[in-house]
């Protein structure tokens, strides 16, 4: 059997409230908060990016896995905000962890789905016996254009998962992927901010792919929503995960533990992986967990995990996701946020 | 070893010398020293310059300056030990004359700092720190001394006011020095409320960015005597090093290189701190003077702050420190500073220091320091 042997999260401490952004653009904060079911979002410091957050999340995963980093055979970083356009994030992360040089690294990019992609490949290489341990990370410092609806949600965070076939904390029961070519959200080369298809990102994009992937994996495993203790859906805003859950027949209680978006925002490639980390933080042995990611473009990866006894042993070896989310926060004003996110142009 | 004397000194007014290039400043100053000594030929010359490369993009300045001084093909050597470059130029010249290798040697220093912007100057000065392990972390030159200051305050109870009093004292002295860049008085209040640079140090705790040069001519004492010059002898010389990364020192509040260099100079001159009538020391930051007075043995360890508060190091104190105004008021064209200290002590020993003259000054000490204390050069000068 293969599965997750260690997991770790990382969330920057800076936050900005919806009100603070709404104040600048003259929008109505209460209706945005209600419409998005989102109160605030995380913001990276100028010295934090996909690479630094991936390193910290992975170090937390290694603490829980209690392995020698040199035994990690693959380091996959999924992000739509890799700091370099050309030059891998994965080599920096692998080097910082001490996994180099006998390691395979790759950077994945698939809008918000890149994190679960890395996990999918790392896990399957372990399953195939090619590597002993594989690391998959979802991390983003996502950008929304100033004044765009995305600005209220585009956030920063990372989650890392190490896969192996011994000392497992969550067994992999099955995986499933559902892809079509659907241009609902994109960023062209040399463009600073992404563009999106407005309401087109909903029904034919997010909802179609998430529901299809969820139904596909449940059907293949002869499982129903009530067979799961927890479910995590990609969280572009607060509403979508509940709505898609309802469409599939899941209850609020199954979704809530991994639903971080109201205080975190959309961490893109980190979104559903962070939800999974938060869920593992509270799951009990024997719990069944379904996770369905979504990436614009478009596609969903689905995984079924079964939590093992070992979860109790490793849980407190690294910071809990909710603690990272709720403690030591630092609220920014829009000016500071704009400076941190390089939205202000300085003289050369 | 031959005894060595200073027979000529030269210095022009320091400041932001927009119209003058590095070579202009240097030649004008060196000519003053040659005239003062009454000579026109040199056997050798030393030029202290910390970073002509970063400040004006010019290396190989020893030959350039020998040429513009009309001294080709004289052997000319550029000396670099960060801000202690000038002091080290004197020490090398002293060794060359003492050894009998040369008779008449020009020891000098120059820095042209205002041709770059503030952040570039900050960078250039920061290269005196460990670039890979201090500079890489964003530390600056004031930042290093701020780290020392905070540690000193914590360990010995040195106060913000005591730091300010160093600047006040030196500006008071500098107000009597027509060559000083900032020859005016300041108050403790002004220092404490000036713009923050690297907490707890404010802008008025810091020596300024300065263009300037200083020069001195040295020769064997016997030759000086024949020339009928006032005999200002170099009787002690010391030079020592320490880690340039302050975190690597056992005690960050203690300037070991300065202590070691002073020990050598005191031993060579057979003098003790209380024998010295005045000190010109490296007050690149107010805290530096406090630490230096301790390392030179003027005061006990940890007592530098109290000493300045009590007026011990004032112009009319028991041990006057920085009668010229120090780096703080006179300015700090880094490579020139060590020689400017020799210029001041020579003036004091000759009795030519005007309003700031220390009465009956017979023995003076110079202390010039590189980086955050990674190098230090100390000299003792005596009037015969």
């Amino acid at each position: 059997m293969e599965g997750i042997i260690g997991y770790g999260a990382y969330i920057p401490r800076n936050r900005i409230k919806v009100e603070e952004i709404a104040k600048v653009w003259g929008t109505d904060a209460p209706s945005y908060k209600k419409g998005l079911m989102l109160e605030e979002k995380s913001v990276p410091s100028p010295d934090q990016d996909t690479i630094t957050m991936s390193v910290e999340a992975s170090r937390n995963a290694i603490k829980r896995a209690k392995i020698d980093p040199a035994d990690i055979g693959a380091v996959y970083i999924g992000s739509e905000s890799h700091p370099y356009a050309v030059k891998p994030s994965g080599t920096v992360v692998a080097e910082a962890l001490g996994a180099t040089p006998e390691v395979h690294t790759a950077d994945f990019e698939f809008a918000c789905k890149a994190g679960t992609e890395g996990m999918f490949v790392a896990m399957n290489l372990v399953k195939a016996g090619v590597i002993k341990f594989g690391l998959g990370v979802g991390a983003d410092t996502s950008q929304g254009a100033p004044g765009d609806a995305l600005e209220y949600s585009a956030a920063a965070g990372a989650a890392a998962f190490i896969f192996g076939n011994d000392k497992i904390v969550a067994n992999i029961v099955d995986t499933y992927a559902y892809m079509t070519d659907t241009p609902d959200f994109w960023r062209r080369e040399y463009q600073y901010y992404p563009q999106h298809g407005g309401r087109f990102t909903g029904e034919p994009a997010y909802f179609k792919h998430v529901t299809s992937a969820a139904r596909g994996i449940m059907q293949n495993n002869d499982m129903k929503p009530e067979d799961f203790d927890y479910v995590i859906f990609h969280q572009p805003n607060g509403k979508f995960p509940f709505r898609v859950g309802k469409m599939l027949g899941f209850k609020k209680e199954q979704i809530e533990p991994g639903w971080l978006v109201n205080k975190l925002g959309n961490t893109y490639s980190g979104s559903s992986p962070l939800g999974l980390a938060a869920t593992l933080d509270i799951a009990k042995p024997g719990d069944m967990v379904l996770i369905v990611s979504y990436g614009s473009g478009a596609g969903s990866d689905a995984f079924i995990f079964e939590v093992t006894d070992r979860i109790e042993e490793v849980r407190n070896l690294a910071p809990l996701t909710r603690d990272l989310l709720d403690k030591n926060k630092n609220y920014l004003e829009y000016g500071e946020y704009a400076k941190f996110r390089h939205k202000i142009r300085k003289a050369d | 070893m031959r005894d060595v004397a200073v027979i000529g000194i030269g210095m022009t007014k320091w400041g932001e010398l927009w119209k003058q290039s590095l070579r202009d400043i240097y030649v004008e100053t060196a000519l003053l020293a040659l005239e003062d000594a009454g000579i026109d030929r040199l056997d050798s010359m030393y030029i202290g310059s910390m970073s002509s490369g970063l400040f004006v993009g010019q290396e190989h300045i020893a030959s350039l300056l020998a040429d513009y001084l009309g001294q080709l093909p004289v052997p000319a050597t550029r000396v670099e030990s960060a801000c202690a470059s000038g002091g080290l130029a004197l020490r090398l010249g002293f060794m060359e004359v003492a050894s009998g290798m040369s008779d008449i040697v020009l020891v000098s220093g120059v820095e042209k700092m205002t041709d770059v912007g503030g952040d570039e100057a900050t960078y250039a000065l920061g290269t005196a720190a460990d670039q890979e392990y201090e500079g890489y972390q964003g530390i600056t030159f004031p930042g290093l001394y701020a780290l020392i200051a905070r540690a000193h305050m914590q360990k010995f109870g040195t106060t913000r006011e005591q730091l300010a009093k160093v600047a006040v004292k030196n500006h008071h002295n500098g107000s009597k020095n027509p060559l000083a860049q900032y020859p005016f008085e300041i108050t403790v209040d002004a220092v404490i409320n000036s713009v923050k640079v690297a907490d707890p140090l404010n802008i008025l705790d810091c020596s300024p960015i300065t263009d300037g040069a200083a020069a001195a001519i040295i020769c064997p004492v016997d030759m000086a005597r024949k020339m009928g010059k006032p005999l200002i002898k170099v009787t002690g010389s010391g030079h020592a090093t320490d880690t340039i990364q302050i975190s690597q020192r056992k005690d960050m509040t203690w300037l070991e290189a300065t202590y070691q260099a002073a020990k050598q100079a005191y031993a060579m001159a057979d003098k003790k701190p209380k024998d010295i009538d005045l000190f010109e020391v490296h007050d690149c930051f107010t805290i530096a003077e406090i630490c230096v007075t301790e390392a030179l043995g003027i005061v006990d360890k940890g007592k530098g702050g109290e000493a300045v508060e009590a007026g011990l190091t004032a112009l009319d104190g028991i041990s006057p420190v920085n009668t010229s105004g120090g780096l703080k008021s006179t300015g700090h064209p880094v490579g020139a500073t060590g020689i400017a200290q020799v210029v001041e002590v020579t003036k004091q020993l000759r009795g030519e220091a005007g309003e700031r003259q220390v009465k009956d000054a017979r023995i003076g000490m110079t202390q010039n320091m590189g980086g955050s204390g990674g190098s230090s050069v100390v000299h003792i000068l005596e009037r015969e």
Partner: protein
Amino acid sequence: MSTPSRYWREIPQRYRLEANKCNRCELIFFPPRLLCPECKNRKLEKTKLTEKGKVITYTIIRVPPAQFSDQAPYAVGVIELEDGVKLTGQIVDCAFDDIKIGMIVKLEFRKLFEVGHAGILCYGYKFVPN
């Protein structure tokens, strides 16, 4: 433009805190040295620094060098790690008023600066409150 070699060669120290030690003198060197300055021993062993320590002095840099101009003001301190090694580093994720001598901090992987608009990104350690 300088080549990235200078950055690259310090990676083991900056990413993984690799140091070495003299077993005779019980001294740890960071960055690693070729010989022990105390006993001149050249057979130094590889080791790694501990990742927690305390602030022994600090400052707030308000006038930064050129490559840090976007970041100022920022705090820099000297940290004494649990293994006794002292190193200089930025203290981040902390209000300046909360920084105190004796404060316990741990290392985090951060970006130190960028080389211009198009050059390499320079990573390494900084300190955050424990």
